[in-house]
């Protein structure tokens, strides 16, 4: 199993470093360019949401990313922060293919995460904060 970890300040300036970290990890598993790109985008959207919403409005803190490539080849990415609790059910679905002019703030990032990854799970508790876990199955 491959396991890599990165802790960065929860600010937009960290996004390029996060993208590099994800690329190195996914390439270590010999996934192709499409898969690298899709995972990078899902993680970028997830971390941008943390920076903008969980840590926005004066909250500050780090983002901890842990990537595992499991023995059967699936990729698991955990993203933890200590910002405001995030409730995905509070984010409306974006009107894809319909009225994009009324696109709600934040919903598009969540849409991409769910579109690009096979599993997206949010968990919050007082001790550990927000924990997002995303799974991408090994490409066939």
């Amino acid at each position, binding site marked *: 199993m491959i396991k890599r970890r990165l802790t960065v300040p929860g600010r*937009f*300036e960290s*996004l*390029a470093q996060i*993208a590099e970290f994800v690329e190195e990890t996914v390439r270590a598993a010999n996934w192709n360019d499409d898969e690298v*790109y899709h995972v*990078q*985008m899902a993680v*970028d*959207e997830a971390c*941008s949401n943390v*920076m*903008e919403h969980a840590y926005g409005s004066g909250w500050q803190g780090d983002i901890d990313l842990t990537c595992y490539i499991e023995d059967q080849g699936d990729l698991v990415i955990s993203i933890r922060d200590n910002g405001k609790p995030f409730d995905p059910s509070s984010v409306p679905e*974006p009107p*894809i*293919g*319909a009225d*994009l*002019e009324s*696109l709600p*703030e934040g919903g*598009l*990032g969540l*849409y*991409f995460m769910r*579109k690009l990854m096979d599993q997206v799970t949010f968990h919050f508790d007082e001790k550990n904060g927000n924990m997002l876990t995303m799974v991408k199955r090994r490409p066939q």
Partner: protein
Amino acid sequence: MKVVQTPLAGNVVCVKAEGRLDAATVPTLEQTMQRLLLEGQAKLVVNLEAVSYISSSGLRVLLTARRQSRSRGGDVFLCCLHPRVKEIFEMVGFMSVFGVYATSEEAASAFSQPAPTA
């Protein structure tokens, strides 16, 4: 993120973005487009040839600029999409929302064509 603006025929301005278009870098493009709109420049072409990554932050900036330019009698057309960016656009239906052209000149000349009725 680097943004270069170039005048095109027909009172159109081309805005060429270069680099990753994510939440950290998108303010550079946003500020350029907002400044042009405030100066009364409502016909804009955004050249995305040198943008290989665009996140939802970048998509939102393009949508906002499009809405604002249309309210001033103009529009925002896009050109030279990188295949990766085109894939993202297709996922969210942007290809049917924006006018997308192969070159900046084609995009500029589309401003003088009658708008499609469909």
